[in-house]
């Protein structure tokens, strides 16, 4: 039975449960609402909750667990010979494809269920049969693959049947349990509220689950990568040249260098502009100027990064090339110009800096505003001008917070993807020239994981190690920045 139908049946049962539970409660009180412990609706909700929640939870767990169990069982059956020159995940995807193909063929009437169960590869060309129902196979079906596919189908259909029966049983059992408990003295509201509370806790725990998911998916694949590629070569290698034919050199240093260089350029643009803007807005600007300028600057933060990426690639890159390139006015200073292509550290850094301006200015603005007015008044009272007060009193007082803001901006810059994918270039190199094309950790994660790469090769798995590095780096920066900001805030509260 399709999952959708199971869900519909459970929901219908729950609705029926609501109505019946409510009626039973009212009936037990002799149709007198006042002698019930809770409002009548709570009795209904109680039955509905016991019907739907355990059943749907079981359904969810089953749907996650069944493919896992079936996969391990089937892959244990696959003979070693089939793995020759290939790997488990590819073979398993073949098996799944054949199994799904057979099911599709039965659904479309190209094969009967009995035929599908007893296919003889000598007499039928399975590839052609499946092709006729729209399932394209790369090569002819191997007997071992077919065997595994049949096991897979068998286990899946048994599992599906068991799931349907058990889920519906759970729904009915919950229904009966809650229905029979319903009488006028039953504390329905308390039970329902306990249930809702559990649901609320579950929703809040999704944040933890997400973090666990991120960490697990990074850690497992990273360990897998380090099994195939030495860890020291990854962290200390100075060459990045992946080749899917083998013999790749996957050193992270050129990528880290590119990342930090671009972030540095971005911060050199964003921090002075953002900081001065924040100082002006919080100390000098009239209320009406502030009311107009602040939202306008924040528009820069609301623009999607793909827009900045395109801006870097198609506008800023060619513009810089016309100045610093081979035909530009500066070409005479360097042999053939500093810049050879539109994509460069400078291009990406400049555009990323623009993106970060509102980030720096908003955070600094908040921090400067949090400096107590008494400090300003004291400084003015001593005869200092406004700018002297800012330079000698407010900025030193706000410094920890501003450092925190800059660190947060750095973490943003390091994790930024679209601008560097489009604007920084694809070549990994260790160079000091800001007009050279370089690449970053995030750009390489994208390039190693898009396309038809085989997920078991070190060239694809390296992306997870890069992701892990990125995650640890940004997390460290964030925690450090929040620590600084928090410590500073406590001083004045």
């Amino acid at each position, binding site marked *: 039975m399709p999952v959708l139908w199971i869900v519909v049946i459970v929901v219908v049962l729950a609705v029926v449960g609501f109505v019946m539970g409510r009626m039973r409660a009212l009936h037990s009180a002799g149709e007198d609402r006042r002698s019930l412990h809770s409002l009548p609706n709570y009795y209904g909700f109680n039955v509905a909750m016991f019907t739907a929640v355990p059943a749907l939870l079981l359904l969810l767990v089953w749907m996650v667990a069944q493919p896992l169990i079936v996969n391990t069982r089937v892959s244990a059956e696959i003979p070693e010979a089939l793995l020759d020159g290939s790997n488990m995940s590819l073979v398993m995807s073949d098996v799944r494809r054949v199994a799904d193909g057979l099911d599709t063929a039965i659904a479309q009437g190209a094969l009967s269920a009995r035929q599908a169960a007893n296919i003889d590869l000598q007499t039928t060309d399975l590839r052609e049969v499946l092709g006729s129902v729209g399932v394209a196979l790369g090569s002819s079906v191997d007997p071992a693959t077919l065997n595994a596919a049949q096991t897979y189908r068998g286990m899946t259909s048994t599992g599906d049947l068991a799931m349907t029966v058990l889920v519906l049983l759970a729904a009915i059992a919950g229904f009966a349990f809650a229905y029979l408990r319903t009488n006028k003295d039953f504390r329905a509201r308390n039970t329902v509220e306990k249930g809702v509370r559990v649901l609320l806790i579950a*929703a*809040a725990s999704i944040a933890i689950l997400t973090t666990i998911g991120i960490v697990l*998916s990074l850690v497992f694949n990273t360990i897998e990568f380090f099994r195939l590629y030495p860890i020291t070569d990854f962290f200390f290698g100075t060459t990045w040249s992946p080749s899917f034919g083998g013999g790749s050199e996957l050193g992270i240093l050129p990528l880290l260098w590119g990342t930090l260089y671009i972030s540095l350029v971005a911060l050199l643009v964003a921090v002075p502009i953002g900081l001065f803007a924040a100082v*002006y807005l919080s100390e000098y600007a009239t209320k009406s100027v502030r009311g107009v300028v602040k939202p306008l600057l924040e528009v820069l933060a609301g623009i999607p*990064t793909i827009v900045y990426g395109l801006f870097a690639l198609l506008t800023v890159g060619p513009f810089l090339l016309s100045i610093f390139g081979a035909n530009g006015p500066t070409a005479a200073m360097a042999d053939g110009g500093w810049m050879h292509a539109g994509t460069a550290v400078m291009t990406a850094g400049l555009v990323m800096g623009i993106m970060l301006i509102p980030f720096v200015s908003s955070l600094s603005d908040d921090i400067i505003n949090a400096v107590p007015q008494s400090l300003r008044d004291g400084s003015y009272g001593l005869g200092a001008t406004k700018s002297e007060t800012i330079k000698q009193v407010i900025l030193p007082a706000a410094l920890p917070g501003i450092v925190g803001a800059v660190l947060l901006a750095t973490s943003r810059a390091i994790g930024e*993807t679209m601008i560097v994918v489009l604007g920084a270039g694809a070549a990994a190199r260790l160079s000091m020239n800001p007009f050279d094309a370089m690449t970053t950790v995030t750009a390489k994660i994208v390039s190693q994981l898009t396309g038809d790469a085989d997920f078991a090769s070190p060239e694809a798995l390296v992306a997870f190690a890069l992701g892990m590095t990125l995650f640890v780096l940004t997390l460290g920066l964030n925690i450090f920045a929040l620590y600084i900001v928090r410590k500073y805030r406590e001083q004045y509260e």
Partner: protein
Amino acid sequence: MSDATQHGAGQPATRSLHHLDARTKRRNASEKRFKALGIGAIGIGLAFLVILLVTIVSNGATAFQQTFVEVPVYLDAAKLDKKGNRDPEDLKKATTFTYKPLIEKALLDAVEKSGATTDLAKAKDMKNLISASAASQVRDAVLADPSLIGTTVDFKILASSRVDSYLKGRVHRDEIAKDKNITVAQLDLVDQLRDAGIIHKGFNWAFIFGADASDSRAEQAGIGISMLGSFYMMLVVLVLALPIGVAASIYLEEFAPKNRFTDLIEVNISNLAAVPSIVFGILGLAVFIQFAHLPQSAPLVGGLVLTLMTLPTIIISTRAALKAVPPSIRDAALGVGASKMQSVFHHVLPLAMPGILTGTIIGLAQALGETAPLLLIGMVGYIATNSPDGFLDGFVSPNSAMPAQIYEWAKRADPAFYERAWGGIIILLIFLLGMNIIAIILRRKFERRW
């Protein structure tokens, strides 16, 4: 002040306070400089914004115009329906290769009739002027209505992307020496045909509602299908992130005891808000595609990833909205005998709803423009040409999304796609602007000062 003490008490000041000494002048100048720096910084920031917007509009506006060729095509029965029975099955056997010469011939006839002077005298010479999509457009019209065969029908077909670029000023005569897709003689003819009204520009509805096209047909590419993909993703995000986010915020703000578990959740939420979006893409790839075997490139998977990404944003703004509801409301509810749960769900939540919706819309806007995670779950490199068959299929059938489509166009070799990418950005920004305006209106209309 310092001057006065130096002169000693009792002695009258020799100079007026209105006369500025060198030091005061220096200090005032420094004050002015500092202020100018601030204004300069704001000016630069705003200038960047203006440059960005002007670039987007000036590069993208042309994507909404497209060059069309109006030409009467004689649908030759001898070629299209050799058996002469108008049987739809037989008509289908005539491929676009059969239609192509008819259209080229028709255009040549139109050229001769318009009195244009040109050396191009063969039907083949017209090939570069019209889009490769013209043949299938005519074929579809014939298959839809076989009675057209044997008559002359006026068609409005797309001009080729080179002709379009020429009329928009991107392709110049002196740059096309090596271009095998267009010749100078053809461009001369285009000029004459434009004056004769056969070639003209029109509003490009196909760009907004149409499907993406392959690398060689820039003139045909549209963003419509990927817009649909984005729509399905936003639906997933809304349906999942709003209830989960609100439930989590209610727990944290109203019920959570102060203990380690609560702290753990809080730390996790604030950290997730700062995790780079690409890491969520890795999570989606590893968990939803490798582990759970959900289909690649499906809006469902994209929506799930974006849900996880926007949850922290929604939770943070929802908590702020809940916090803004004064405690007196809760106390009053509890005082008349409501349970804690009732006070929250019946009183606090409805009052916080405008704030929650505002936060959700802003979270959705953020998710709509996000690209990086979508790259990892296979939403690029895929040409979004087919609209899904039905509502549920839309969640699982491969599709693109607006930002992914823009990225895809930016990567293609033909510069004609750049115009589409900018145009796509205009559409994307209009959506974002709309969402933000709705959020602002909601806030203005329902905001309450307690």
